């Protein structure tokens, strides 16, 4: 490598650094600092209601307590069940939606726009909507199923299993279109000649989907999976608006538990430990996914 080339490279990296700096700074201030601060707080015992206890450093005590906390364990189970169920359903629905709106048909633009509406509605509003739909007295679900037979009306949200199912349903309704958008982008980069060639070779629709669409869609699917998993892990608004964790803790998810301990109970140290734990789990998950997606993407870029 010649000397001038190395100077050029250094200059280039300096320019790159300068351009990246603002974004990096913003990330530092708004992402890294809160995370580190939470981490620091989680190593202390702080009770807002008991300032006389001070804020003693307790090391990893809060994390040890978290591991033994039956409420947190239950919340973790609920969260994981929510993540797996909602993510899989969203990918399935998203794939179907994407395949439909990828086709050419009259009014496609309108359909595409309509499909995005659930995603554009603020989650708080959507949650309220679903709460009304499943209301025991004037809910639309009951009207649809039983019409005027009001004695048969079901109090959906009063059953632990159903309340959980409704939270999943609301999330699937709301975010499938987001998954669809990512998958649609993936569909659009699959070259048409592949399909043409397959058609010439006599491949059926299913064979084309199975051997062309699905494999080539893998990066997009993985990306959608990554985004949806991270998001599902952080589920909060649906629970906050619809059930407040009830009935009987059936919809108590980790983020809501963290919120309760931090903001309502004023247990700053322990609440921070809950948030940090959620953060670490999401981080671990993302890194695993990124390795799966990223490696192949990077390899490809290099060629």
């Amino acid at each position, binding site marked *: 490598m010649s000397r001038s080339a190395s100077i050029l490279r250094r200059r280039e990296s300096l320019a790159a650094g300068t351009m990246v700096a603002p974004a990096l700074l913003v990330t530092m201030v708004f992402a890294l600092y809160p995370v580190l601060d939470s981490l620091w707080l989680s190593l202390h015992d702080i009770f807002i209601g008991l300032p006389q206890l001070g804020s003693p450093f307790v090391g990893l005590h809060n994390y040890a307590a978290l591991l033994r906390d039956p409420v947190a364990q239950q919340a973790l189970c609920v969260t994981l069940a929510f993540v797996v169920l909602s993510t899989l359903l969203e990918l399935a629905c998203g794939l179907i939606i994407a395949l439909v709106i990828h086709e050419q048909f009259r009014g496609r633009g309108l359909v595409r726009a309509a499909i995005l509406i659930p995603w554009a509605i603020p989650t708080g509003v959507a949650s309220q909507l679903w709460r009304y739909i499943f209301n025991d007295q004037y809910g639309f679900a009951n009207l649809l199923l039983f019409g005027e037979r009001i004695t048969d009306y079901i109090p959906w949200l009063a*059953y632990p299993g159903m309340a959980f199912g409704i939270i999943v349903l609301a999330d699937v309704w709301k975010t499938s279109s987001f998954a669809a958008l990512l998958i649609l982008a993936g569909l659009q980069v699959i070259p048409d000649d592949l399909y043409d060639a397959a058609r010439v070779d006599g491949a059926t629709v299913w064979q084309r989907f199975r051997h062309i669409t699905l494999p080539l869609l893998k990066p997009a699917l993985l990306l959608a999976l990554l985004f949806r998993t991270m998001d599902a892990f952080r589920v909060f608004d649906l629970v906050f608006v619809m059930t407040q964790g009830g009935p009987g803790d059936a919809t108590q998810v980790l983020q809501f538990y963290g919120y309760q301990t931090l903001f309502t109970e004023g247990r700053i140290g322990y609440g921070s430990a809950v948030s940090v734990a959620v953060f670490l789990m999401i981080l671990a998950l993302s890194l695993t996914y990124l390795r799966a997606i990223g490696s192949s993407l990077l390899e490809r870029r290099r060629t």
Partner: protein
Amino acid sequence: MRWISFSQRIPRISVSPPRVPRWFGLLALLLTVLSVGRPQAESAPQPGAGTPTTPITLRFVSWKPDHPRVWDEALAEFTKAYPHISVVRELAPHSSTAYHDLLTQKLKNRDTTVDVFFMDVIWVPEFAEAGWAHRLDERLAPAMREQFLPATIEVGRYSDHLYGVPSRIDAGLLYYRSDLLTKYGFSPPTTWDELARQAETIVTGEQSTNPTLRGYTAQFKQYEGLVCNLLEFIHGHGGSLLTADGTHSTLAQPEALAAVQFVRDRVIGGLASRAALTYQEPASLSVFLQGHAVFHRNWPYAWELTNNRTRSTIAGQVAVMPLPGLTEGRTAAALGGWLYGISAYSQHPDEAWALIEFLSGRAMQKKFAQEAGIAPSRQALFSDPDLLVVAPQLRNYLDVLRSATTRPRSPLYPAVSHALQRYFSRALAIDGLDLAQEAAVTDAHIDRLLALTGMTP
């Protein structure tokens, strides 16, 4: 090189950024505009020109009131009496917990834009220990204190200091359909067994004309109100939530267990629809107002609404009485209510006090009682002839209010309450749950919390 040939086997698909359709940008823009919406008009009233003293703006953080008109009028009268003080209200959600979280968030940040706030009676220890509320020992003289119901002053005190002035008093009451009880020849029930028998007869008898009629409606959602409802059952059976010295949780005691068992086996899905597991006050009241329940547990504010002909189908057919006990001769009402407090970070504590004195004064409490159906905290109003004409039910309240039961008093009450809510909700919602074991686990958890507070009674 090997790695190049390896990578070449991967299908070469350009990973250009996903093509986003053109309409998307427009849609996003449109939705952003829609979701931002119109800004809330929050115009601070300007103090009148030529006021003698420097104009001051007080900020009053409050929940969204049930009767906004009465509140607007009350504050307008205050500004008339104190022209140099204007009051800006900051409204938080109706839910007590949501209001708590918003208010304490401000106080944690030492927000100087909070002067006066409402404090739920259960928050006093927390606010006192955290140093968020001004001490009012000097301001509310002993002679003034005596004018209030003793229980309402008592809940405003914490370790020998006073932090709140009672705006009202709340306690659980039993509302019932007097027309239906008369029709079937029943006198108001004093025990839950009696109530259940009456309800059964009435519901069966009314089956043909009102198939959705249930015996009872109350608040059993997983939230603060659940604690109040269950406390009433437990105390009404001779049990308690804590030991008398307030240091240990007593949910696993036989009386407390039996009371929870009763609610689970007889009330949820029996006397009351299972839907009660999703009810807070408004939903449970609406069931009653629509004539779908014979008995209803609620706070005093519900009286005005049950007799409000535009909102209630049963106006004039309702009476109110103390809640029955599970055991004969016992009755328990959870004590609630809201206290006015002054923020420790307020820059205008004197003006804030003027506002509190005005709002908690006799004239304003009378106004709230007459026009909003709120039970006053001043004893004299319970025998005020004008008031008794429009609110005759007040006469029935006094005994209930005097003997109302407080919830555990601890600076960590929100944490204690969450543990209680969890236990009660799980007990009522999950079939076949081992109550005794669940109660023991909850007891141990609450004991640990109470131990932290260093034995605060």
